[in-house]
């Protein structure tokens, strides 16, 4: 536990010791604004809710989260600091969890900084704030899913560009797996049960469901299981690299 805390602290501070944090947060907030007000037509809808805001989170995360996750392990490998980290008396899973949590908390900070959006909508009307809270939680869970994928991929390579591109592609599949493009590909040869399972793997399906205002236990389990799975894969990847 102490190890996780120490590594978490170091990682979290590292975001703010470099321009990474500020650049990321500014771009995050800027894009959120653009999508919500222009593409989501926040004002024109004349409805007091944040649906146009949350609707674009999956698509923003698709590019922004892999950008945060790509450095988690690739950078350590590139600069050689992974040799420091892995020769400290810390089990690999603790290092993986600590790094993930630091990145997740950092995303949470960026998400919390969108609070002016919430103030605006409350100022303009009387929105259902439980729906908004549920959507925020759903969004954070989804960000965690994207991050866990990105962290695992970043453990595979010391090249951050490769880590980024591969993560985006895998995250994209996880978004689209509820969509015809992906399902048709499987429908040709896989049994229907498998196709249904794939559909239920989509981030979108579960995020949409939470966004309605109720956090169903199944959606919660989905995201937590997804995060656990990818972090476990992350540990396996890091352990395997030791065998060179």
């Amino acid at each position, binding site marked *: 536990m*102490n*190890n996780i*805390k*120490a*590594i978490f*602290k*170091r990682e979290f*501070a*590292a975001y703010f*010791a*470099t321009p990474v944090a500020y650049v990321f947060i500014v771009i995050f907030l800027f894009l959120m604004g653009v999508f919500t007000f222009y593409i989501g037509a926040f004002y024109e809808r004349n409805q007091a809710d944040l649906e146009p805001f949350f609707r674009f989170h999956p698509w923003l995360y698709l590019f922004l989260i892999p950008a945060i996750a790509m450095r988690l392990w690739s950078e350590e490998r590139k*600069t*050689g*600091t992974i*040799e*420091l980290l*892995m*020769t*400290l*008396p*810390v*089990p690999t899973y603790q290092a993986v969890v600590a790094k993930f949590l630091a990145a997740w908390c950092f995303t949470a900070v960026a998400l919390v900084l969108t609070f002016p959006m919430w103030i605006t909508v409350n100022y303009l009307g009387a929105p259902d704030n439980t729906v908004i809270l549920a959507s925020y939680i759903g969004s954070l869970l989804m960000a965690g899913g994207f991050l866990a994928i990105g962290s695992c991929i970043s453990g595979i390579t010391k090249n951050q560009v490769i880590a980024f591109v591969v993560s985006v592609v895998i995250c994209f599949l996880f978004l689209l797996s509820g969509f015809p493009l992906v399902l048709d590909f499987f429908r040709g040869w896989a049994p229907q049960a498998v196709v249904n399972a794939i559909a239920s793997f989509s981030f979108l399906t579960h995020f949409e469901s939470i966004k309605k205002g109720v956090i169903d236990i199944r959606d919660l389990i989905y995201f937590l299981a997804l995060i656990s799975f990818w972090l476990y894969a992350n540990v396996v990847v890091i352990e395997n690299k*030791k*065998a*060179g």
Partner: protein
Amino acid sequence: MTEKTEKPVIEINSLVKHFGPIHAVRGISFTLRKGEVLGFLGPNGAGKSTTMKMIAGFLEPTAGTISVCGYDILENPIEVKKKIGYLPEGAPLYGEMTVTAFLNFIADVRGMTGKSREDRIEEVIQKINLQSVRNQTLETLSKGYKRRVGVAHAILHDPEILIMDEPTDGLDPNQKHEVRTLIKEMASEKATIISTHILEEVDAVCTRAIIIASGKLLFDGTPAELLAKSTNGKLDDVFREITTKFHAEQGMLLAS
């Protein structure tokens, strides 16, 4: 000689490491006791760093065993890592951290607490002469200072075993002297392994020398024994003789 009767702190048996087709380490065995300072010598690419990385627990051996203070490195890696202070080759560091922040992080992970922790960090900063750069970020340090921070981090928890990959590389002559003195000061309480390309260093700090080339152990003995092999009393010449003779034999083996 109580030392000789003590159990070795490090026992290495038929250690092998392959990177795909590259056979970096090909069956190295040796033991190390408390109080010994082992100089790891060998030409570039001999397998020195690879061997040290395996002892430090960064790489897993392809075959062979490493036991540290009675713990097998594969079965009990965490216990082993607690006993070791390790300076990786090139002394990689987290660039965005300051010297004190970095040492505090290491102290955190090493489970150091309270007043003794503050004192120890201060003591190490004084010992390695880092006072003038303590609040500077690591990426802005000169090469020698980076190396010194690396040394500081390795000795911070006063480990029983010290493994340093080219600790004096890039240091100015004064600092080379300082680090060697430091190693000698600590030597009686620890088992130490250092790798180096400076043979006079072996004479100056090591109680024992090992020469490896192409992943094989060619010599294991005291610096005096090594010197005795030479005709003109120069360590450099013995080193060249042993390693080139080996490479020539290897060449003949391949040719036949």
